[in-house]
């Protein structure tokens, strides 16, 4: 029994949340059971991801290959739980468990009746399952299907808030994201037409052999996939849907959308770029230059746009655009240090941004005030929420001892190794700008007099969720140990594929 569970663990971490999601609508009215099941399955996911990570670490980075239906690689679909896969699985489980704790008993205000809350949870679990699938999949077309599940559930989560503006944001998001996935499907089509394989490993091998016969096709495939995932993960000029969608969604949904969904698409892009095209081909087509440039522009532009926002949630949403820039910049540094940095930064941004969005959501729920200026004095009345917000901000700026620092440090080392002085300057400038748009919030909350109103910290599950996330930020910053090890292994694996 135990042996069959561990042998099938790579597929169980994907289907466990999905199975729970299927049965939830049939007892939508029993709220406590629904919430309990969601938290239970998220905990199981964390345990499973941790176990897989321990196996991969013990195997010195040899990936666990799982053949679905027993069909070997070029014919069937293959799951690969390598260092990159389990790294992202850990991030997913580590973020979605606190977020579902935060949502416990807290959603009726923003979402509506019990049935709607149950459907919200179903969409939430489906998104979690799709993201876990993206982490372990090794098949081109499977990526497209998973991306569609994630897109639809993201848009559903945005429109779960019963408000016309939410519907409008969801429509823009849906149209843009579908445009993106159509482009991704086109890119997959070009790749399949010239290689004849859908498995990433086989397609990569074949592509290395025949790319000279079809240079334009390969170039078109790269650009389709880059633009497609660029729309979905809000790389700077294609980010127009993000601020509306992420700021109008219910708070737990904003946290999961900004923290995880965007990262899922970035992981898919990383897999396409490094596992399918491979570092060598990327350098031949100068894709890494484009990525570094786009990332640099995104960091500066996103931060400046965030500075101009008055609404707290919108400011955080624009900050996501800037932070995605760091990750894209890291994709463009084709060396181990840069990739380690970008992966670690991806994980730490997932944790930090969920903390910030959840804290902002708690403040919004308690005070009813949206704008930064109106939140003066909130720090003394809601100590735990504001403390979490402060730790998150410091982590995002990149203060040592918090998780953002290590990611940025490795990114700096990688840029120096690549001899890219521009990106060194941009990374430091981005940190300064980040401080410029987050520190005023903290200053206002602690050091300015606020109105005499009775604002309170949220309930116990919400507090536990925030404390868990803050603990994750500090632990990742102080003892990154095995996590950094996984990131390093993943980076080495991605680069060694050439």
């Amino acid at each position, binding site marked *: 029994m135990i042996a069959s569970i561990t042998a*099938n663990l790579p*597929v169980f971490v994907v289907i466990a949340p999905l199975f729970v999601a*299927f049965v939830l609508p049939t007892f939508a009215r029993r709220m406590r059971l629904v919430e309990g099941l969601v938290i239970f399955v998220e905990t199981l996911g964390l345990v499973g991801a941790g176990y897989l990570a321990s196996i991969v670490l013990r195997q010195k980075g040899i990936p666990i290959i*799982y*053949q679905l239906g*027993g069909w070997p690689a070029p014919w069937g679909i293959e799951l690969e739980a390598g260092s990159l896969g389990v790294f992202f699985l850990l991030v997913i489980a580590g973020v979605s468990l606190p977020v579902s704790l935060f949502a416990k008993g807290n959603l009726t205000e923003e979402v509506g009746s019990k049935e709607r809350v149950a459907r919200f949870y179903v969409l939430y679990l489906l998104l979690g399952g799709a993201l876990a699938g993206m982490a372990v999949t090794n098949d081109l077309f499977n990526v497209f299907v998973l991306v569609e599940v994630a897109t639809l559930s993201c848009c559903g989560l945005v429109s779960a808030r019963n408000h016309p503006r939410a519907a409008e944001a969801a429509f823009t998001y849906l149209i843009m994201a579908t445009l993106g996935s159509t482009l991704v499907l086109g890119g997959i089509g070009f790749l399949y037409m010239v290689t004849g394989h859908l498995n990433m490993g086989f397609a990569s091998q074949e592509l290395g052999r025949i790319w000279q016969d079809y240079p334009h096709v390969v170039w078109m495939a790269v650009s389709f996939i880059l633009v497609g995932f660029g729309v979905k993960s809000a790389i700077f000029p294609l980010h127009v849907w993000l601020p509306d969608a992420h700021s109008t969604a219910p708070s737990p949904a904003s946290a999961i959308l900004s923290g995880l969904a965007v990262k899922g698409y970035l992981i898919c892009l990383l897999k396409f770029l490094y596992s399918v095209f491979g570092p060598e081909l990327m350098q031949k087509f100068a894709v890494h230059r484009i990525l570094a440039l786009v990332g640099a522009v995104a960091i500066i532009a996103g931060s400046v746009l965030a500075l101009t926002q008055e609404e707290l949630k919108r400011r955080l949403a624009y900050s996501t655009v800037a932070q995605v820039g760091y990750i894209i910049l890291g994709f463009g540094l084709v060396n181990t240090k840069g990739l380690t940095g970008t992966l670690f930064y991806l994980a730490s941004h997932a944790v930090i941004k969920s903390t910030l969005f959840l804290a902002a959501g708690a403040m919004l729920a308690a005070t009813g005030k949206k704008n930064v200026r109106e939140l003066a004095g909130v720090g003394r009345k809601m100590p735990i929420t504001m403390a979490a917000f402060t730790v998150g901000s410091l982590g995002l700026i990149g203060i040592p001892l918090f998780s953002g620092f290590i990611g940025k440090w490795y990114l700096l080392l990688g840029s120096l190794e690549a001899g890219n002085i521009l990106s060194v300057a941009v990374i430091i400038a981005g940190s300064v700008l980040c401080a410029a748009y987050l520190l005023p919030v903290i200053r206002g909350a602690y050091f300015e007099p606020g109105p005499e109103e009775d604002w309170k910290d949220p309930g116990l599950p919400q507090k536990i969720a925030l404390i868990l996330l803050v603990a994750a930020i500090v632990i990742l910053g102080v003892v990154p140990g095995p996590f950094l090890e996984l990131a390093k292994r993943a980076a080495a694996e991605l680069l060694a594929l050439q």
Partner: protein
Amino acid sequence: MRDFILKRVAAIILPFICIYGFYVILHGHVSPGGSFAGGIIVGLSFIAYSTIYGIEKGRVKLPEKVLTWTESYGTLWYGIMGMVGIVKGAPFLANKLAGVDLGAPGALSSGGLISLIGLGVGIRVASTMVTLFFTMMEEES
């Protein structure tokens, strides 16, 4: 709609459309077509019934609870069929490897789990179409 001719014709035709849908679902593995096409035909027969006889009567034929259950458990059915492989010691969604009898080629019972999965998917697609239609129509009124 109160058209007498339409109602009489529908009363004769709709059962056959529904049965034809199930035929397409069940013969998906031996002939063109399959669970998606068949499921949509089955769903359409109910949608046509509701447009001709009125949405309330359609609701009586397929109450919301039934639709929720077919939705949820139709999707779960796929997963359960996948678990057969794991129970038999083969990977998830295994068919031949799980030791299922594949049957004589061309027979309705051939293909092992394929026809069972197809049936589940077909019912699920039908209920999706009907749910989408009901939700949108009720919002209009």
